[in-house]
């Protein structure tokens, strides 16, 4: 697969209509585009929104000024397509899990005593370092499955912020959520993934 020395080179190729360049962008951006679309309009029309967004991207590329990364710019176009669709259908922007934001923790309350101390303290993890967690194929799959089970907004935040390393500020603009909401959602997502890993820890020993 072609490598691009910098984004400028990639953009030039995209504007010229180079198929390889589009292949590169689809491979690396399409999943995030879908996450963003799903977070805003839901699963059923997310794919349509992504197609709308591609059309806008192709048309607007010659005017791209490079003030953000190409990916951030494209994701913002997805977000705008999704939001304008909602407006057209005069639907409210109702991000799936914005409603239950007030429930701060995603840890079940029975984890704690009434005085707020641990009722069941976190157990020891046999596989504890990120490297070891990544190296274990089983845990890797468990983490991926846990991500797939998250509400779409949390999926977007985990993907864009943790895996893709986008700035929280940009993510908030793309998903149209406040900085404090984004933090709460990231925390809940991480806590749920922690639970998934935790559940699996020590299992081998039990089964022996």
């Amino acid at each position, binding site marked *: 697969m072609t490598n691009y020395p910098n984004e400028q080179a990639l953009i030039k190729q995209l504007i010229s209509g180079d198929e390889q360049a*589009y292949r590169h962008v*689809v491979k690396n951006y399409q999943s995030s585009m879908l996450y963003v679309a799903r977070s805003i309009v839901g699963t059923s029309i997310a794919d349509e929104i992504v197609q709308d967004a591609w059309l806008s991207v192709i048309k607007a590329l010659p005017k791209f000024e490079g003030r953000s990364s190409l990916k951030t710019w494209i994701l913002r176009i997805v977000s705008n397509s999704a939001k304008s669709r909602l407006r057209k259908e005069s639907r409210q922007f109702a991000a799936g899990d914005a409603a239950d934001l007030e429930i701060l923790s995603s840890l079940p309350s029975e*984890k704690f005593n009434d005085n707020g101390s641990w009722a069941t303290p976190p157990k020891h993890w046999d596989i504890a370092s990120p490297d070891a967690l990544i190296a274990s194929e089983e845990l890797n799959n468990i983490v991926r499955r846990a991500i797939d089970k998250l509400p779409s907004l949390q999926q977007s935040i985990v993907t864009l912020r943790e895996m893709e390393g986008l700035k929280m500020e940009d993510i908030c603009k793309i998903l149209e959520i406040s900085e404090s909401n984004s933090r709460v959602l990231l*925390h809940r997502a991480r806590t749920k993934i922690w639970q998934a890993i935790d559940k699996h820890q020590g299992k081998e020993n039990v089964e022996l």
Partner: protein
Amino acid sequence: MLSCKDISHLTSEIIDNELSFSMRIKVKFHLFMCHSCRNFVKQMRATADTLKQLKPKQPNEDEINQQVEKIMGVIKELDPTKHK
């Protein structure tokens, strides 16, 4: 005094270094006293770091081909002189 439950709410702010100075002192004090929370923060940090190392999902070869084909179709439609 912060409770363990409070710490469990603050864990992401702890690992992302987003706490105010006064809060940081309170958290430090609790963590100094509480082995369980130290453990929890460590595991949550490992969880976040694991996510950072995880490769983002990519569409499969078929999905990529389909999408690229659609895009190339649009490009030709918009500008018939442009195609490779």
